């Protein structure tokens, strides 16, 4: 038997959680709308399930507790920045406690379609103190891997327009600087977010994946990296070591099937 390195929280975490019991893997895919995030996650889920790994998807604004109220509040754009951040944090915490942690306890692979990094960068570009928001998310589990799909803002616009023929109000940062030039606003906002991600990368050590390539090439890339985690490589979020390095470190056991225990 290999000795598994227990998971950790970023800060104080959730009271009463025994980290040693969390046997599954938490894999996060981050990226803007149009970065190909959802496509990649769908493909990963198929791949993992075909190979017999129980997999569960989580994402933002999907909690039973507040998702509907949060959506409604956003429609009217009536909340202040901090209130919105906290509303999202509530949504996140509800899913963390009721979905992510139980799934990890049962040995599932949790595929997170965005995680706290998006939430933090959105808050920070809107003027919330970085220290404060990081502290709020001290409740979050440190993932086993975070992949950030970096796509140039121009490419993002193209993809979004091709898919929806319209740019999303929030992803264009229209709440920050109302303007008649939504195109320009989108580009500017995405640049700011990317800058934030870049500086977070140093802090959290996640992997940037070139999202300007074809879906197939990106998927290949992700699978290779996830394969290492499943084989028992150390989490890539831990440091800036490259894959060959981390593969040699403390082995992590592959997730055990849910045993009801």
């Amino acid at each position: 038997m290999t000795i598994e390195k227990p998971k950790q929280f970023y800060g104080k975490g959730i009271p009463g959680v025994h980290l040693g019991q969390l046997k599954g893997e938490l894999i996060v895919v981050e990226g803007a709308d149009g970065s190909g995030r959802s496509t990649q996650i769908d493909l990963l889920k198929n791949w993992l399930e075909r190979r017999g790994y129980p997999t569960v998807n989580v994402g933002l604004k999907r909690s039973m507790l507040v998702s509907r109220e949060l959506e409604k509040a956003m429609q009217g754009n009536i909340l202040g920045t901090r209130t919105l951040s906290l509303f999202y944090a509530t949504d996140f915490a509800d899913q963390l406690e009721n979905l992510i942690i139980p799934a990890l306890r049962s040995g599932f692979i949790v595929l997170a379609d965005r995680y706290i990094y998006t939430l933090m960068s959105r808050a920070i570009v809107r003027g919330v103190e970085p220290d404060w928001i990081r502290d709020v998310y001290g409740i979050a589990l440190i993932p086993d891997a975070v992949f950030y799909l970096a796509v140039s803002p121009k490419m993002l616009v193209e993809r979004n327009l091709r898919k929806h023929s319209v740019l999303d109000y929030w992803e264009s940062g229209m709440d920050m600087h109302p303007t008649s030039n939504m195109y320009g606003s989108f580009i500017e906002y995405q640049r700011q977010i990317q800058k934030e991600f870049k500086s977070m990368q140093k802090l959290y050590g996640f992997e940037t994946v070139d999202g300007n390539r074809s879906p197939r090439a990106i998927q290949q890339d992700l699978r290779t990296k996830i394969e290492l985690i499943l084989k028992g490589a150390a989490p890539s979020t831990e440091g800036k070591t490259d894959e060959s390095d981390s593969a040699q470190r403390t082995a992590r056991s592959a997730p055990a099937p849910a045993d009801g225990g």
Partner: protein
Amino acid sequence: MAESKKEIQGKLVAVEGLDGSGKSTQVYLLKRWLELEGYKVFFTEWNSSAIVRKATRKGKKRQLLTSTTFSLIHCTDFADRYERQILPLLHAGYIVLADRYIFTAFARDAVRGCDRTWIRHLYSYAIQPDLTFYFDVPLKTALERILDGRTRVKYHEAGMDMGYSKDPYESFRIFQGKINQEYRRMVREYDFITVDATEPPDVQQAKIREILETKVDLPLYKWHGPLFPRNLA
């Protein structure tokens, strides 16, 4: 984004204490007095943001809340009132009266098992009140007042989520007792002005008004020009 207190003209007055301590009655009387005397006054209550409260109610009703989400959803509610009302009104030079403030969260969330430092950071954006009245009441009195004329106590009010006891009344007693301990720990940390909540209501009110008059330069908070004719008030 956090405000420096110097820029703020208004005054923030908070009341804290157990359910049944009589603080709501006292803050109501304080509000009436200030209104009728022609001061700019605004009153805000814990857990009352129109947008957030619906979610909180659902969470409580279906028992979806954990100590962490309980804490976060109340902080969201507070942030909404803070960003849209408390802070703008303080900037506008109002006397803002808060029936429960961040200390309620500090006390309750700590009893529910949240980390004390984390909770304090969570609310670190909120300015400290100029005056915080703490209505100190023996647990027994508070319980009698709450249970008198009520057929049942609410699930979360009684701390039933904590699993202290299957009997709501027993659970209520234990839970409120722990909250009271948390309050008492904060009296010195946050300069609470302790009010003896066993005294007759009018005596308490007279004392509070007197303290307010000493600590706050009230004439600064008068409306400019009559809001409504004085003789009608």
